[in-house]
């Protein structure tokens, strides 16, 4: 990073909030897609939105590429730095500015950790619904960039469905606000909130976010069903859907994922080829009636064992195993790729068979965890990075799985985004003209392409591929994923 840039940054930040030494930069060199890493020119740590705005304007003026960074848990390389560019670390903007239980909204800064909103809302019987498994560390800013979801997004949607208002600085320094406190969000005029969410940091930086809070359901009924065949678990999901029930969550894990979860958090799962978790939520009388119906379906679906959480503690244990599945796989294998693809729900069975065949061809292990209710697959591809060519092979397999998702009429990402990882698969989903239009839109907002340069669109500078397992912050013991 040259002197002129440093001097310019110094007009905004005191020296201790401009990180430039190698040791300081190390934790920022990659995100949770650890196969990629890049050294940024510098990291700045703003404390308020004015500093962010000034930084973005400076970057625009100096043609300096930047990446906004929340907690760096992106699984697609979204928060990977740009070589010699700037990382704008948003973790210190972690204030919940206002929580209004009467209107059931919270106004938060972008670095607020997802789970902290629910914790703050808890005394009022409210919570923030989108629940990525990384919710105890990932930030709302990152959630906005990827329209992140979680196990409980079947009924009430993903991040986009819970944001009512946004203040953002666009990549060329313009500051704009849309939406507000109404449940209607923007309501009149085009839904710019919906457009900004999921833009993967390419449009600019979210400065202030108004989210809606929901009343905690009165009753949960969490059922764990064990199958000796993965296909049966998938069929059970179709049966639940066909019955007209609308559960809050439906999740499946296969044998390898179960084994990993057991090894990691001792969830006490049965020994099975597949586990299905179905959770009903809502008013007690309604949930109890639905539960009766669900029991009938599960009984017919060929489950060899069914457990029902009898207490909040048991419910938490069932979910703990599921939510720790990604990081748990780290116990089974030195390295792994977390994949994210979507297939139409009715083709889940087909997709699983095909993935099974693929993994045998490649001689690699794949653990499957998925949001079965919306056909969102998370195959975890296990490999040993110390073996020459292993990463390449794993990536090839990941690519074939994505191609399969597209061929079945689905998507190359349900919630982790395109980032760095899936740039080259965009043409599988979009025509050249559609990509051109998206690019043109990006340039209309960011003529110099400084915001998250090199992400989302095919081509661009390829970063270094490295072979390491854990997130650098994890290696240092700064973060953990449980």
């Amino acid at each position, binding site marked *: 990073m040259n002197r002129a840039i440093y001097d310019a940054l110094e007009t905004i930040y005191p020296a201790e909030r401009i990180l430039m030494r190698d040791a300081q930069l190390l934790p920022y060199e990659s995100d949770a897609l650890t196969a990629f890493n890049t050294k940024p020119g510098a990291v700045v740590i703003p404390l308020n939105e004015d500093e962010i705005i000034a930084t973005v304007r400076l970057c625009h003026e100096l043609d300096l590429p930047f990446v906004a960074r929340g907690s760096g848990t992106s699984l697609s390389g979204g928060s990977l730095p740009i070589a010699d560019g700037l990382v704008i670390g948003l973790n210190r903007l972690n204030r919940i500015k206002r929580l209004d239980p009467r209107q059931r909204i919270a106004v938060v800064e972008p670095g607020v950790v997802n789970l902290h909103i629910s914790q703050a809302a808890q005394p009022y019987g409210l919570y923030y619904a989108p629940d990525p498994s990384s919710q105890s560390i990932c930030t709302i800013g990152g959630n906005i960039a990827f329209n992140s979801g979680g196990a409980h997004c079947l009924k009430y949607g993903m991040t986009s469905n819970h944001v009512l208002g946004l203040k953002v600085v666009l990549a060329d320094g313009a500051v704009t606000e849309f939406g507000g406190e109404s449940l209607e969000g923007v*309501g009149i005029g085009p839904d710019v909130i919906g457009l900004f969410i999921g833009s993967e940091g390419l449009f600019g930086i979210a400065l202030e976010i108004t989210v809606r809070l929901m009343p905690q359901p009165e009753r949960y009924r969490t059922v764990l069903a064990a199958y000796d065949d993965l296909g049966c678990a998938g069929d059970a999901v179709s049966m639940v859907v*066909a019955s007209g029930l609308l559960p809050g969550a439906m999740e499946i894990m296969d044998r390898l994922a179960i084994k990993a979860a057991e090894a990691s958090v001792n969830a006490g799962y049965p020994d099975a080829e597949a586990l299905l978790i179905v959770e009903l939520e809502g008013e007690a009388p309604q949930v109890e009636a639905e539960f009766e119906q669900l029991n009938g379906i599960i009984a017919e679906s060929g489950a060899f064992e069914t457990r029902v959480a009898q207490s909040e503690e048991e419910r938490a244990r069932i979910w703990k195993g599921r939510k720790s599945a990604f990081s748990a796989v780290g116990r089974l294998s030195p390295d792994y790729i977390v994949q994210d693809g979507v297939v139409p729900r009715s083709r889940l069975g087909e997709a699983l068979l095909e993935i099974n065949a693929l993994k045998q061809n490649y001689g690699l292990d794949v653990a499957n965890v998925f949001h079965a209710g919306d056909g969102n697959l998370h195959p975890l591809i296990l490999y040993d990075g110390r073996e020459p060519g292993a990463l390449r092979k794993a990536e090839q397999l990941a690519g074939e799985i994505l191609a399969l998702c597209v061929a079945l009429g689905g998507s190359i990402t349900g919630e982790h985004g395109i980032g760095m990882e899936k740039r080259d698969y965009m043409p599988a989903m979009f025509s050249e003209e559609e990509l051109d239009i998206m690019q043109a839109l990006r340039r209309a907002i960011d003529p110099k392409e400084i915001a998250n340069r090199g992400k989302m669109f095919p081509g661009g500078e390829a970063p270094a591929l490295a072979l390491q397992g854990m997130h650098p912050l994890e290696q240092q013991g700064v973060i953990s994923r449980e």
Partner: protein
Amino acid sequence: MTANTLRGTSEIQDCVRSNERVHVVGNGSKSALHPQSGGAALADVSALSGIVEYQPSEYTVTVRAGTPVAEIAAALAEQGQYLPFDPLLPDCATIGGTVASNLSGSRRYRYGGLRDFILGAAVVDGAGRAFRVGGKVVKNSAGFDLSKFLVGSLGQYAIMTELTFKVFPDVPRFRSLSFRYEQLDAALDAIATISGSAYELDALDLLPPPPANKGEQAQGWALMARLGGFAETLPQRAERFVESVKRETATMEVRELDEADELWNPLAGLRGAAVVKVVLSPRQVPALDAAIKRSQRRYGVGGNVAWVATDDLAALERALLDAGLRGLCLLGAVERPIIGAPVERQLSARVKQVLDPQRKLV
């Protein structure tokens, strides 16, 4: 004004390419959205109709933009499903017009509004290009989500030809109740209590007192609540709900309402030279209400929208500006459909520049 009935994507492309100004219309059910369009060619897309693909097991439906909402609702109902955003004007609107004007009805209270259920679209933009935005599966985060941007876009960025929605299983049975409050404040307190509670209502609308005749006792505000679910659980749920509302709020009277056709049509009975949708939050209701006391009005979605009928649009606009609110005129002869606080321009102007550089779509 030339009216063109367009039957397919290529005809729409031709229309856009060969005209300087184009104004899209579906069934024209919202008169205020079609002001004298200053020589623009009318692109009538109501013939672009029909269900393209409906897979009940996927919770998705893809339809042509000119399809009547009623036709979609009927097809879904056959499979026990519905559009949870509850399209407004279900008897006369097309689905494309409903998206363009972002008009969800009272039942959007339960699961969300139009923006929460749109998954993707096929469009023709102002440059005459035909392309797709969003996806066709219930979850997809690849690329920029221009499909959401179409919600509320009033045909000014691209012409929709096909739309994909997420759908949900519908509930078999309803119960509707009305709670009376003497003052608006008490009714708003009740809204806050009810919507923060674990009772899962399908709809929650607030009606102002009807104008009292001389010597008659004032009627008070009527808070209408609708429960939906299994027939066998509804009596118990309704009872618990009523008990809780009586206990926690200052209601003066509880009445069971007859599930008649018009009960949950927020525009029912609203008469005036113009009918306007106003977006607001419950906190903003008192100030607005004080300014529009003489208009017929209804507050929908737990106080998150107001439906207002007025003979004095200028006065309504002043009230909106004072309160920092925005309205969309649906019915009536108006100069421009959006009144009150200006809409966001920074980001939407960039989209316009890309999709409609010659500003053809008006």
